[in-house]
């Protein structure tokens, strides 16, 4: 494999200790790249792409099943593939990619070595084993329980075991991340404070520990229950703890995604947070105020009181939402401020119109920010309030919401940053740059159509995870508002466009990594790596007026959706 590696390979002795490591100095960025870490990053990234392929293959079949004129799959296979899609998309794809990101942020960016490469491979092995076991059990029809597997629905014990193995592997990866941080700190490889990117990843890693602990707390007893060693798993308790895993893990994604947004700002325009203290505080808010995210899933459930629900979704002031709103200003303003310093200072939006739109990592990031904020964020806050949850709970609006957050947001961000990983970590030129420039737009348009139509369908009462909206075999039938036909078509169209876009992305990645010309130096770099933007001249007034205007637009959209939803709620029956 040594022929893959270019640049100078060095073996350095660190000054403090006799702990040398085999690395190359990147000829493009100047970072020291530990070769054992690089291999682990590659392995996890490859597993992530494979998982994504599995997930979207299931997804397109699901779209054409719910689209009633085609109604592709049988009931059995529909529910089976909903389970399969959820697990591969939300767990395997995202977490493999995040582990790759954690290794990247804790070694390459910090110029340090990987603390225990062998354990890194054990972690990877456990995760792959978990993926294979769980997917196999699902596909042979022994785990038709949905990703949530609410008890007393019961799957084959190996299904739970697969997830446990995967989680143990992931937890080990997170521990290794902290190990790398410790080494970097001790060997003083990065200066006084962690770079913002790694700092954000660190908050993601801390949340991951909390999350995986909840996961262990619920999956281990459930596994024992499926073996017959425990009599009963209380369904309400199960749901409470399961969402401690299910929802908090989304906060890992948010923290990792926002970290990448800051990184892309740096790589594409040489930008940085206009106030690092603010950005870092916002990251800390994620850790402190996400602990009972599962409350968002219990808003229309028996068992917990309204006081409990209202308090635990908000802690009186929604500080996790506040954190995202702070980033909503801090991230775009980092681009705006840098662009203005490069001289794109005309008017409110020249910084945006003259931005490097031909850089697919940049366009992915901007589109991810828009989708995450306007589609995922607004609906997330509104659906997550106690009373408005009544009109959306378990409707297809809920997956519509998280298509906005975790697919347009996280997945598009991850796909975008991969355009940097191919040359920098896989050391290959990208084949199909022309396609790459279009791919993020296609993905954004497809998913925006998909998720907005799902949200509208949900508001019209269409349930999620439901095979047949004609209710065949039931004692009665129900016809939804005729408008649903239009939105089903839109959803099918959006899903198809998004599917094509993901396939384009996967082809670009696979072809480039396998057959792309090898990188020989900075001249082969197809994506810009911007130098730092020049320092700001002292200025009074606003540092990012364009961003401020955009955030106000966001605020107006949010308020409009907010009042619309409460108006719809007020039109329903009285209930108390």
């Amino acid at each position, binding site marked *: 494999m040594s022929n893959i590696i270019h640049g100078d390979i060095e073996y350095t002795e660190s000054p403090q200790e006799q702990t040398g490591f085999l690395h190359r100095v990147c000829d493009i960025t100047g970072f020291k790249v530990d070769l054992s870490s690089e291999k682990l990053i590659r392995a996890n990234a490859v597993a992530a792409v494979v998982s994504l392929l599995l997930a979207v293959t299931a997804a397109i079949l699901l779209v054409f099943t719910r689209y009633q004129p085609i109604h592709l799959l049988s*009931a059995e296979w529909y*529910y089976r593939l909903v389970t399969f899609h959820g697990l591969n998309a939300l767990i395997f794809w995202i977490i493999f990619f995040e582990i790759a990101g954690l290794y990247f942020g804790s070694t390459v960016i910090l110029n340090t070595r990987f603390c225990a490469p062998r354990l890194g491979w054990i972690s990877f092995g456990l995760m792959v084993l978990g993926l294979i076991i769980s997917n196999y059990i699902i596909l042979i029809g022994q785990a038709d329980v949905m990703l949530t597997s609410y008890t*007393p629905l019961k799957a084959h014990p190996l299904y739970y075991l697969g997830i446990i193995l995967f989680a143990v592997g992931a937890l080990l990866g997170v521990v290794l991340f902290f190990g790398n941080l410790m080494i970097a700190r001790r060997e003083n490889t*990065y*200066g006084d404070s962690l770079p*913002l990117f790694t700092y954000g990843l660190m908050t993601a890693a801390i949340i991951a520990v909390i999350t995986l602990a909840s996961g262990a707390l619920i999956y281990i007893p459930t596994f024992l229950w499926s073996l017959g060693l425990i009599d009963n798993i*209380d*369904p*309400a308790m199960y749901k409470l703890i399961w969402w401690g895993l299910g929802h908090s893990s989304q906060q890992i994604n948010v923290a990792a995604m926002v*970290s990448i947004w800051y*990184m892309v700002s*740096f790589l594409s325009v040489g930008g*940085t947070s206009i*106030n*690092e*203290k*603010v950005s870092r505080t916002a990251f800390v808010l994620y850790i402190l105020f996400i602990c009972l995210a599962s409350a968002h899933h219990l808003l*229309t459930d*028996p*068992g917990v009181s*309204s*006081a409990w*629900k209202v308090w635990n979704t*908000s802690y*009186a*002031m*929604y500080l996790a*939402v506040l954190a995202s*709103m702070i980033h909503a*200003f*801090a991230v775009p303003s980092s681009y705006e401020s840098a662009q203005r310093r490069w001289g794109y200072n005309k008017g409110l939006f020249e910084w945006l119109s003259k931005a490097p739109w031909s850089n697919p990592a940049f366009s992915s990031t901007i589109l991810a920010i828009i989708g995450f904020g306007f589609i995922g964020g607004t609906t997330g*806050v509104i659906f997550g309030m*106690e*009373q408005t*949850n*009544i009109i*959306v*709970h*378990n409707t297809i609006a809920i997956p519509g919401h998280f298509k906005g957050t975790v697919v347009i947001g996280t997945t598009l961000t991850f796909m975008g940053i991969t355009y940097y990983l191919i040359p920098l970590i896989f050391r290959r030129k990208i084949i199909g740059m022309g396609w790459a420039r279009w791919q993020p737009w296609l993905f954004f348009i497809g998913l925006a159509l998909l998720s907005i139509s799902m949200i509208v369908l949900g508001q019209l*009462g269409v*349930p999620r*995870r439901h*095979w*047949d909206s004609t*209710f*065949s075999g039931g*004692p*009665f039938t*129900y016809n*939804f508002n005729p408008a649903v036909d239009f939105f089903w078509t839109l959803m099918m169209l959006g899903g198809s466009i998004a599917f094509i876009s993901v396939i384009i992305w996967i082809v670009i990645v696979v072809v480039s990594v396998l057959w792309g010309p090898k990188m020989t130096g900075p001249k082969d770099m197809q994506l810009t790596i911007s130098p730092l933007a020049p320092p700001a001249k002292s200025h009074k007034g*606003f540092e*990012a007026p364009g*961003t401020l205007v955009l955030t106000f637009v966001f605020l107006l959209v*949010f308020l409009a959706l907010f009042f619309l939803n409460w108006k*719809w*709620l*007020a039109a*329903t029956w009285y*209930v*108390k």
Partner: protein
Amino acid sequence: MSLLSPAEGWYYKKVSKDEKMWMIIALILCIMLFVWMVMWHVYGKQNPSSTTYKTSTVEFAELTEAFIKKNMVGVDNGIPVVRPNPNSDVFVMGEMWRWSPVLIMEVNQSYKLHISSKDVVHGLSIQPVNMNFQVYPSYDYLLEFKPTEPGEYKVICNEFCGIGHAGMIGKIVVIEKDEDLKKYGYENFKKAPVPIIAEEGREYSEAEKVIMGEQIYTLKGCGACHKTDGTSPIGPTWKGLYGKEEKVKVDGKPATVLVDEEYIRESILEPSKKITVGFEKTIMPKMPMKDDEIEYITAFIKSLNK
């Protein structure tokens, strides 16, 4: 500089005017969201209740059955229809795969709905008004509903509950006055038929057993899967079943059985022992029933051959 250590003095850098402004607005908005939820409890009319009772699936099934017996006014597609009094306690049970009973409610009147499940988790979703609540086994959720518009409503299940999930649909009819019942084909549903009073020690005639069997069929919800019209969407139809040679699987091996009293008894008490070919995916849940109930059900099945 997100990939490098921040510039010196970053901790003490002043926050710019616009960022500060945005953060204050965002914080106010976040606090407002909290206050809004609290105020809706004071002034709003739609608030999920805080009242839950711990129960068991067996106990709740008995409560529902007793409630239906008392208030039943008819049957709609195999599901009992009840017309409870306003302000009274109403029991609604979800099970694989039906909601029972069908409710007749009066507009602008309150009903205390006790909602629970007999088996797995279900989702109670009233359409088109689009109100959605979670339903657990062994938790009795008390929600006091006051319908504000007359009309026919459907209760669909929106929490995955097994292979028959998509066919799980119930009904609520909201009327303004008795005449409205006509619109729904319920004009004869004004009061309950006189049930046969169980008397200790009396021998029932075959005809009486058939009537009681049909009541059990309705109450226990057999009709959700077993139709009497010859169709078999989820389970084998009961029409012409008795005395038929049925292809079954015993431990996965094919066999043929004669549908007789003994086979019916076994199928009720241990449904997964012999599985009818063609219905392997929709295995019947265990139905704890008393001997006399099984006898009446058998009489009812026999009667469907005529």
